[in-house]
């Protein structure tokens, strides 16, 4: 059993009177790709934001790399922050900087590299995420949505983090781009040994990339693989994965 890289115990998130997470527990193992699914408004993104420290939980403990991120001081938090990378939904690239400069932001912040090495690494990351070379000099507004996501991933990977958070990485992409993105995630995960925490709606992405799936239902989390979740009696989970079974059957008969 691999040691957990993220360990959430008794997490409670509530806004006003509406409780999103009620004593939720979750463990993410080192080196796995975990997909998080759930209906709209079940707090998938809130869960992600809570883990990376953008949202303070009402109660509960969140340990990342063995450190309780809800209690760290700024200095210790920085040390944790440089070990993870976050890809936001639309890339969240800094719009007044080129892609290369965006990738260099964390490098500049955390290392003392020469400019020429930073340029080399920026170009390297651009090529690693499958963007054409000339994209490095473009501004985010000159890129398509899919390219912005790749560029955002390149920035998230700039410091070679151990853990990457992806928020809806394939939402809004055409199926071909989405497939390519799935392959990219899988490929990078294997070659870099990443742990991936991925919030997604896309069942194809789940199938292509994830090792385990965490389903947010009834303010708690149910973890399993596609094979086990297909047989889950919970109505939402059943409905969500029923399509998969149908499709799998189709693929077999065809």
């Amino acid at each position, binding site marked *: 059993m691999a040691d957990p890289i993220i360990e959430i115990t008794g997490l409670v998130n509530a806004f006003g009177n509406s409780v999103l997470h009620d004593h939720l527990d979750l463990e993410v193992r080192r080196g796995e790709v975990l997909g998080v699914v759930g209906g709209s408004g079940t707090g998938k993104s809130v869960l992600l934001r809570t883990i990376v420290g953008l949202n303070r939980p009402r109660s509960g403990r969140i340990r990342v790399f063995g450190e309780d991120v809800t209690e760290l001081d700024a*200095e210790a938090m920085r040390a944790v922050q440089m070990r993870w990378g976050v890809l936001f939904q639309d890339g969240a690239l800094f719009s007044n900087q080129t892609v290369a400069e965006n990738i260099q932001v964390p490098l500049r912040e955390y290392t003392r590299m020469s400019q020429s090495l930073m*340029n080399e690494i920026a170009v390297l990351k651009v090529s690693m995420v499958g963007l054409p070379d000339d994209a490095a000099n473009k501004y985010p507004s000159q890129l398509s949505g899919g390219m912005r996501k790749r560029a955002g991933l390149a920035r998230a990977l700039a410091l070679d983090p151990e853990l990457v958070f992806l928020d809806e990485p394939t939402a809004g992409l055409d199926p071909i781009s989405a497939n390519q993105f799935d392959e990219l995630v899988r490929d990078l995960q294997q070659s870099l040994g990443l742990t991936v925490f991925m919030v997604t709606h896309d069942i194809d992405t789940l199938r292509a990339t994830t090792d385990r799936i965490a389903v947010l239902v009834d303010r708690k989390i149910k973890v399993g693989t596609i094979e086990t979740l297909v047989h889950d009696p919970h109505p939402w989970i059943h409905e969500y994965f029923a399509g998969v079974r149908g499709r799998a059957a189709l693929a077999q008969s065809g």
Partner: protein
Amino acid sequence: MVSPADAMPLDAPAWCREERDRDVLRLVVGGDWVIGAAARLDHEVRDLAFGNARRVEIDGAALSRLDSAGAWLLLRTKRRAEAEGREVGAFSLPSGFLPLLHTLERDHTAPPCVLPRRHTFEALLQRIGRGTVHAFDSGYQILGFVGLVAVETVQTIVKPWRHLRLAAFAHQIEETGITALPILGLLGFLLGVVLAYQGADQLRRFGAEIYTVNLVGVAMVREIGVLITAIIVAGRSGSAFTAYIGTMKVNEELDAMETLGINVIEALVMPRVFGLVIALPFITFYTDFMGLVGGGVMCYFDLGINVPSYLRQLQSALTVTGVLVGLVKAPVFAYIIAQVGCFEGLRVQRNAASVGRLTTQSVVESIFLVIVFDAGFSILFSILGI
């Protein structure tokens, strides 16, 4: 104080050494070749001279960790050896790191693209050129917009029941006019006080204190009242127009209106233009009035001029023409402010940063134009002898 670079988790420090065996150069590397050590390793492998070696080997068997920055340094060294005509022999790594190296080798094809340097003379020339083209472009767009709004304005005046959206129009009057009253009242009052104080101080030397009333009255009503109102409204409402329309543009709401067959100019610009043109004269009059009140209060306390004599003196100082000269500017200023605000809003591009930039620009431009037109009015009135 721990600097960020030192805070990098470095378990085993990275090292590299070269071993020369006749014409074979072997680069032996070990430890954690990770991004935290990359700055130092970059210099070490960059300074590595191949000398007379014919064959270059890289031995990474002792590596304990390798990330893409470290792998890149090794890959770069290998490519440099190839480029300098050396034969590259063994390139050995622990098997766990091979997928990473293969990914990099596959994706990153030499020669890498070059990132341009900024702040060069060429870049300066480019900026000047781009700025010039941009200026002409904006001028052209402004002309187009002014014409468009003029046509719509005439249509609206001719057939208001078909072209004017009453609810939006009334809302704009409230937004730009009524909600501005508190701040304008206070500012007008204070300006009246200031004018009276300064005037009284100077005029007392000639024993002409009573003319302080004339000074306050004429300055406030003909010039300062309308000017300060226009400037405040440009800051309050002009900026709001740009931000509101700009945000709609970012959200693709304008495109949605377009596809629904709604005329954007008629729906968004006209209510603002007409709302402000109607509201500004009224709030100008209100500012004038508050200014006169402020002047009166100051005259009473500073010069002991009581209310009846203040009013009598005011009556002799102000003419209806004088008041109208001030008020007639208001709709013109309103037209300018509303147009600039809406125009800049429609120019917003589909990113959030441009909303902020153009909002600032809209305020600066409309205040600038208001003052230019005010000067124009002064020249016109002096020629007409009003």
